[in-house]
């Protein structure tokens, strides 16, 4: 996906990511009630946590009989990456306290990825807020819809989600968002090395930590001055 050329292109990209994540949200809502949780759990969780990966993990942990401490800790571990991601869009979050707090809640993999893919500060802001707010609305509506559908479908919701290949949707959305940045060799080297480290670490570490350990891949980028132009890293192929 090339970087958007106009605001209209940007909004189209935002809408498409929302649509794709909406599908994931429906699947998550359905799954949560299928494993036996009350319907308010996935609905409230989506509003107050608003982080898909952690939500899926926590529902899985609760379904497996984990206690409150273990489940919450697992979710926070998965969300540790939000700290460096929020740092990366820290300039976009500047402003009055209320706006900063709202913006912080909207820091997601998608909003950060699309913001970093923009060529200038104004567009970064527009992209971050459009993606964050749009996703918040679509994600929560999708989860609500999924819980209702999941209750109607019962045990078949999980099977249906797997049969439709919906578990491939989330990684595919994220991959499409980082592909432009990965066109730069130095970024690609760092990201692929990091991914390899994360995969290896996943055999021994709990979910969440391996992804952070991927940051050692950035060491590879330290030694490539040819990529030293600010802003280019996530923009990829902009002429």
């Amino acid at each position, binding site marked *: *996906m090339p970087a958007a050329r106009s605001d209209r292109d940007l909004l189209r990209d935002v809408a*498409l990511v929302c649509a*794709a994540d909406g*599908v994931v949200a429906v699947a998550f809502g359905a799954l949560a009630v299928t494993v036996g949780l009350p319907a308010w*759990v996935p609905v409230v*969780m989506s509003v*107050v*946590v*608003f*982080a898909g*990966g952690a939500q899926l993990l*926590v529902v899985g942990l609760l379904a497996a009989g984990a*206690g*409150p401490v273990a*489940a*919450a800790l697992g979710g*926070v571990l998965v969300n540790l990456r*939000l*700290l460096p*991601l*929020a*740092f*990366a869009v*820290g300039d976009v979050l500047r402003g009055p306290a209320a706006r*900063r707090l709202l*913006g*912080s*809640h909207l820091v997601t*993999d998608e909003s950060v990825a699309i913001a*970093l893919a923009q060529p200038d500060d104004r567009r970064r802001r527009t992209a971050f807020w459009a993606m964050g707010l749009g996703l918040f609305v679509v994600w929560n509506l999708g989860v609500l819809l999924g819980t209702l559908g999941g209750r109607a479908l019962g045990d078949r919701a999980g099977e249906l989600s797997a049969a439709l*290949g*919906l*578990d*491939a*949707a989330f990684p595919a*959305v*994220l*991959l*499409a968002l*980082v*592909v432009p940045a990965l066109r730069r060799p130095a970024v690609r080297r760092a*990201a692929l090395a*990091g*991914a390899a480290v994360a*995969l290896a670490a*996943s*055999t021994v570490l709990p*979910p969440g930590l*391996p992804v952070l350990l991927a*940051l050692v*891949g*950035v060491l590879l*980028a*330290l030694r490539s001055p040819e*990529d030293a132009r*600010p*802003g*280019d*890293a*996530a923009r990829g192929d902009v002429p």
Partner: protein
Amino acid sequence: MSTAGLVATLAALAVGTFALRVVGGLLRDRVDPSPRALRLLEVAAVTVLTALVATSALLEGGGPAGVARPAGVAVGGLLAVRRAPFVVVVLAAAATTALLRLLGVP
């Protein structure tokens, strides 16, 4: 789990997650990164996101996620590299995974 236990879980998870988001943004005000550091920061963000793609595509609960899901994500990735529209990328990924499962591939 009891309702109280579920409420406690959600509250702790929500507070912890929000704190990470706020602290990350506030740290940026304390530290004024050089252009070079900014570039590395973007590389770091992309690296974390790519690792997340890899782990969520290939793994399920600490073990391998089978063949169908990684294959679907790979097809999506290939289309993204070829600059296919977003919706095509996601639909193709899900459709590939679904088709493979229909054929009995795990």
